[in-house]
């Protein structure tokens, strides 16, 4: 690992951490959306319902931005860890090939 300068295990840990934060955000969003989905009767007046719905829609979009960023980060980190791991394996293989005289570097 140290030879390539990447801590593959660490990056996998970061990917998992990002995924967990994404799960937390999705759970909060889902709970909030369910609890606020039928506010018309509580609010009563049409002007309040439309203002509330506009606010709720905007924040639904904002939640989606949060979760998309974290999901994207998690995905990128996972891919990076896989790529680094493959490079590391190839590097190890190359070293072994050199050792056994199969490959010239």
């Amino acid at each position, binding site marked *: 690992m140290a030879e390539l300068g990447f801590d593959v295990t660490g990056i996998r840990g970061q990917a998992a951490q990002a995924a967990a934060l994404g799960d937390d955000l999705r759970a*909060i969003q889902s709970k909030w959306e369910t609890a606020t989905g039928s*506010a018309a009767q509580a609010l009563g*007046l049409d002007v*309040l319902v439309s203002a509330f719905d506009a606010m709720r829609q905007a*924040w639904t979009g*904002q939640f989606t931005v949060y979760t998309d960023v974290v999901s994207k*980060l998690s995905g990128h980190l996972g891919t990076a860890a896989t790529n680094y791991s493959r490079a590391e394996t190839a590097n190890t293989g190359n070293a072994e090939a050199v050792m056994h005289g199969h490959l010239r570097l």
Partner: protein
Amino acid sequence: MATSAYDQISTIINRLEQLADLLNPVSLVEAIAQTISIVENPLPGNASELSTLASAFIGAARDAGPIGPDLHAMADQKLPDVWQGDVAVTASQVVNDAADLVQQLPPAFTYAASAIDSYAGTLTQLEAKRQELLQQLYSASHSVPNVDVFGIDIPIDPAEWSAWIGAIRNLIYGSIDLYNELQDAADILAGEFADVQSKAGAGMAVKAGMNLTDAVVLAATTVDGSGLLGNAQLTRLAEIMGAMTPAERARLDAVLAKADSPLEQAYILKALAAGNSLSRVVTFAGQIRGQSDSWLIDHLSLGGIPNELSYDGVPLIQSTQTECGSASIVAAQALSDPIFAYNLTTGPHGTPLTGTQFAAKVAAEDQATHNFTNTVWPQSLGTSPWGVAAGMNGGAAGGVGNPAGPAGYGVTWVDDTDPRNSYPALQQAISAVDAGYPVPILLAPTLGNLGNGMHYVLITGHSGNLLSIYDPEGGTITQVPESDFLNGDMQAYDQGSPHVNAVIMPGG
């Protein structure tokens, strides 16, 4: 219960006012019956369900609280450079910006919960008041003497009639107050919802078609705690970027990639959102490349001194007694378009101006704006409200980039001594400010005054319960309680001209 139309409440108020005005011994019983038929309907809304709704916001605020710091902690770790977005950014920057945005949720949701709870409390009080009024009306209906309208005269003491009419009129006025208070509370809550909505800029920008990374980075870029691009500009930017050809987009991406900082990138995109051509924006990007954040803020936001619009220690002020309207337009342009601000603070080859040179340039801009806005109206009388609207839409320097869309800015007259008349317009003005539009307002010593003492100021921001108001007389930005503005009581802000006579409203 289905929702009730807000206008229906206005109709009820009008009907009750007619009943109160026409009270006489013959109409008394019928008036009580009609008032009862109105007041016996429960008020729209449910206080208990509102409290449950508020709890949902409190719960989400509490649960999301730790996530922002957790994301910041992740960004502070050594993250590999894995991010691939359309703006040249590192993974750490995107995660840090996203963390900043997540941290905006708890205060916004707590504010929403508090607003809903407050409305629930008002609704409970008003419902109790309604029931009390109803009991009094029932009681009156059983006690009030009737009059035989078919000619049989019932001898009743006139003083007794007068007392009955007075009592019933008081009950009807009490009912009118009840529905007025309900509308006032609803107006305030609707404004508070718009305020909370304005904090969700990234989501709105993505909805308008902006790339995720761009939206996060831009929404998180703030100057003095406020987003550099308001939601209206973010939405407009999304539309502009969405309409670009691949070649145009590549050209924009190339200049963004060369920018030295996220703030530099944000100013480039703000210039695009303000309606400048891509070629002009590319030139501008080259002019500001490599400048420090403080240089950018000083020159492009005139933000060198807190609570003032100024450059090199010189405030942006009106040049003559009659140019408060012109200076308000110039200030709005400077706040909306960084290329306009750049031209105010630099010479032909980008050389920074001195404060004195800046003052001279502002004076020339004020005069050019005044010439543009006053084609008929005498300049000695200042600027007419429709002149200010024209200046905001496309003044000497091109207005504020026509950010209000095809409708542009228009004049909304206000009678701030009649809260019911002024509330919707003033609340709409605050919502426009929440969306990122600067909003000029006309203050005057008395209503309908378009002469002596008339003074334009510019609402530049809204945070919590405070409005930021720029005064071209001194260049200062003062925090004013929004309730003062909504209640038509601007005495504390401007003793000489406390009345809001007109609002120059985007889309108005």
